[in-house]
């Protein structure tokens, strides 16, 4: 077993398949997560169809509507992409700490505080400074606040031993209460009667659309953030150290890796992405900070990250898929008369099945080259 494990990396001398073998091994290792994830999605959709059939509706019609509402027309594709934009960032908010073995689920807190910080810092600047400069300052403020918020959860984890999952979620609730305090009190625009908000950004200061599309620039920011995160994790020594610490904290400490700084750094970076998502929501969609910031992007981001197995590049297609499912919610409600929570049931089912399917990793011989016969 050990011998075989070592020898498969050496050039093989055994016959015709020899030159193909490294490629097949590479393919097998790469194919495992893809195959298992696709299988899990299939099972999840099947269970959801069963549920819809049990309540006496047609699952086929439902899936047709999800497709039509999410990806059927150019309009719906743009709608899906707009919804995917914040999910890209909130998924990173979960995926980056996950590479260190941390389950941080408080992205919602970073989103709302990032949005409030962006809106608050923009107000005195509007009118004097050029728009791009205002956006930059807003983004920095949102990222800083988000970084401090989730970095604190990482700090508590490492230096106080506080469970980061619960701490980050509590911080999210505190953040939402704090946002309500600010938008109902000190930062409230007296003109916002029904829905307390901060003063709105003037139209020239709104982050516009990508040329040729009705999708705001947040999508580009999100994709760039995913690519940069992938480079950070896969191609830098910082990311390599984080992956070691995620695999085995004791081993990383014995190696002299700065585990504490890695944990605080990664959670802070995750929070910065969350804060950026909130700032973009303010600058591109809402125009002001209000209760709509807590729309659940942070929670859907958890599902995106787990579906993508915390791989930043895989987050991009998964976020678009879930953005599409989200976008179809309204159509399902109108055409089939099903509650808007239908989408939540689908997401919850997928989530449970995906995690259940973790148990299949390493069980299939075809994905594990170490178990192949040498002369296969």
């Amino acid at each position, binding site marked *: 077993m050990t011998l075989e494990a070592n020898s498969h990396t050496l050039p093989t001398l055994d016959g015709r398949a020899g030159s193909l073998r490294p490629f097949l091994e590479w393919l097998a290792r790469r194919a495992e997560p893809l195959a298992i994830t696709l299988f899990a999605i299939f099972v999840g959709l099947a269970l959801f169809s069963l549920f819809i059939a049990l309540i006496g509706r047609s699952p086929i019609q439902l899936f047709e509507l999800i497709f039509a509402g999410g990806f059927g027309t150019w309009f719906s594709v743009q709608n899906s992409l707009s919804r995917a934009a914040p999910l890209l960032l909130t998924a990173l908010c979960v995926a980056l700490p996950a590479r260190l073995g941390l389950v941080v689920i408080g992205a919602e807190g970073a989103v709302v505080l990032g949005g409030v910080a962006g809106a608050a810092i923009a107000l005195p600047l509007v009118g004097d400074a050029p728009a791009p400069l205002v956006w930059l300052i807003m983004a920095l403020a949102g990222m800083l606040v988000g970084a401090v918020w989730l970095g604190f959860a990482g700090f508590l984890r490492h230096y106080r031993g506080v469970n980061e*999952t*619960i701490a980050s979620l509590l911080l999210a609730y*505190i953040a939402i209460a*704090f946002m309500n*305090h600010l938008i109902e009190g000190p930062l409230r625009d007296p003109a916002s009667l029904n829905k307390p908000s901060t003063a709105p950004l003037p139209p020239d200061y709104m982050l516009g659309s990508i040329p040729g599309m009705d999708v705001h620039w947040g999508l580009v920011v999100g994709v760039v953030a995913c690519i940069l995160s992938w480079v950070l994790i896969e191609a830098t020594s910082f990311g390599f150290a984080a992956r070691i610490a995620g695999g085995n904290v004791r081993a990383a400490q014995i190696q002299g890796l700065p585990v504490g700084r890695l944990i605080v750094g990664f959670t802070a970076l995750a929070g910065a992405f969350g804060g950026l998502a909130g700032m973009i929501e303010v600058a591109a969609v809402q125009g002001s900070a209000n209760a709509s910031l807590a729309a659940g992007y942070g929670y859907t981001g958890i*599902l995106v990250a787990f579906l993508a197995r915390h791989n930043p590049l895989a987050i991009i297609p998964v976020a678009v898929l879930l953005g599409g499912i989200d976008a179809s919610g309204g159509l399902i409600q109108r055409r089939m008369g099903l509650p808007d929570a239908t989408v939540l049931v689908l997401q919850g089912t997928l989530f*449970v099945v995906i995690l259940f399917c*973790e148990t299949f990793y390493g069980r299939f011989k075809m994905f594990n080259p170490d178990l192949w016969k040498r002369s296969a």
Partner: protein
Amino acid sequence: MEATGIGVWGVPLAIFAGAVRVSTPFIFVSLGEAITERSGRINLGLEGTLVFGAMTAYGVAVMTLSPWLGVLAAMAVGACLGLLHGFICKFPKVNDIAIGIAMMQFGLGLAFFLGKPFIQPAAPKLPAIAFGAWSNLPQIQAALNINVLFLIGAALALLLWWAFRNTRVGLILRVVGDSSDAARAMGLNPDTVRLLATAAGGALAAIGGAYLSLYYPGSWNEGISSGQGLMAVALVIFARWNPIGCFLAALLFGGAGALGPALQSVGVTKGYYLFYAAPYVLTLVIMVATSSPTRSLAGAPGALSITK
């Protein structure tokens, strides 16, 4: 302040009344989670169970006109959700914390989906006992109007505290929670024990949900829970897995949760949103104060992943 008729005493009285009223869901969820965690597993999905239990109890109470049937139905679905969690966690490589998050989203989604028709109709409420009938002050009467479930919760805390120490079931639970290997050596199947413990925890958490929808605030809507299910998990750690401690901690949390509404009721109009954060801040402070980066917590079940 003049609105209360009994001056500043209105604030502590309102906090006491709020503590009793608000704490009941915490009591049930934390006792349920204490059973689950004592068996060495953590169920973060109790937030979903709580909301699903609230919806089920309300729906059944609307249809049968019996709030107690609603509570029983909630216990049954709560146990089912617990069984599902326990069943999935039995498999290797499955992370119980992550499954808990997924079960939370699943439970919330399903509750919102199935609960849509029950947002409008009114359900019969659970009965309360008027301990304050001796007083002629309406505030005191209101404060001492204590729900039956609160009393059941208090009795259950005592019962569990006794049972963990003195019964065979309690011993089995503690052995499984401390060491899977020791449990197997005794001829016990840890997975089965944990499955049943998670189901019991789910059933109790669902009673907490039934209290929310059938007594206080006493209606079903999608914002019925504000994280009680999650705070209860933290509360169990604070209470060191001791049922009596869970009961007292739940009272403390209930009091903190009542702070915002209490101040609002005596005429504080500014800044009370910050007091809505009080229970979360309190939970966090307590977690920071009671955790340690170097040693495991006193009284922690050895097989529990959250304390490693």
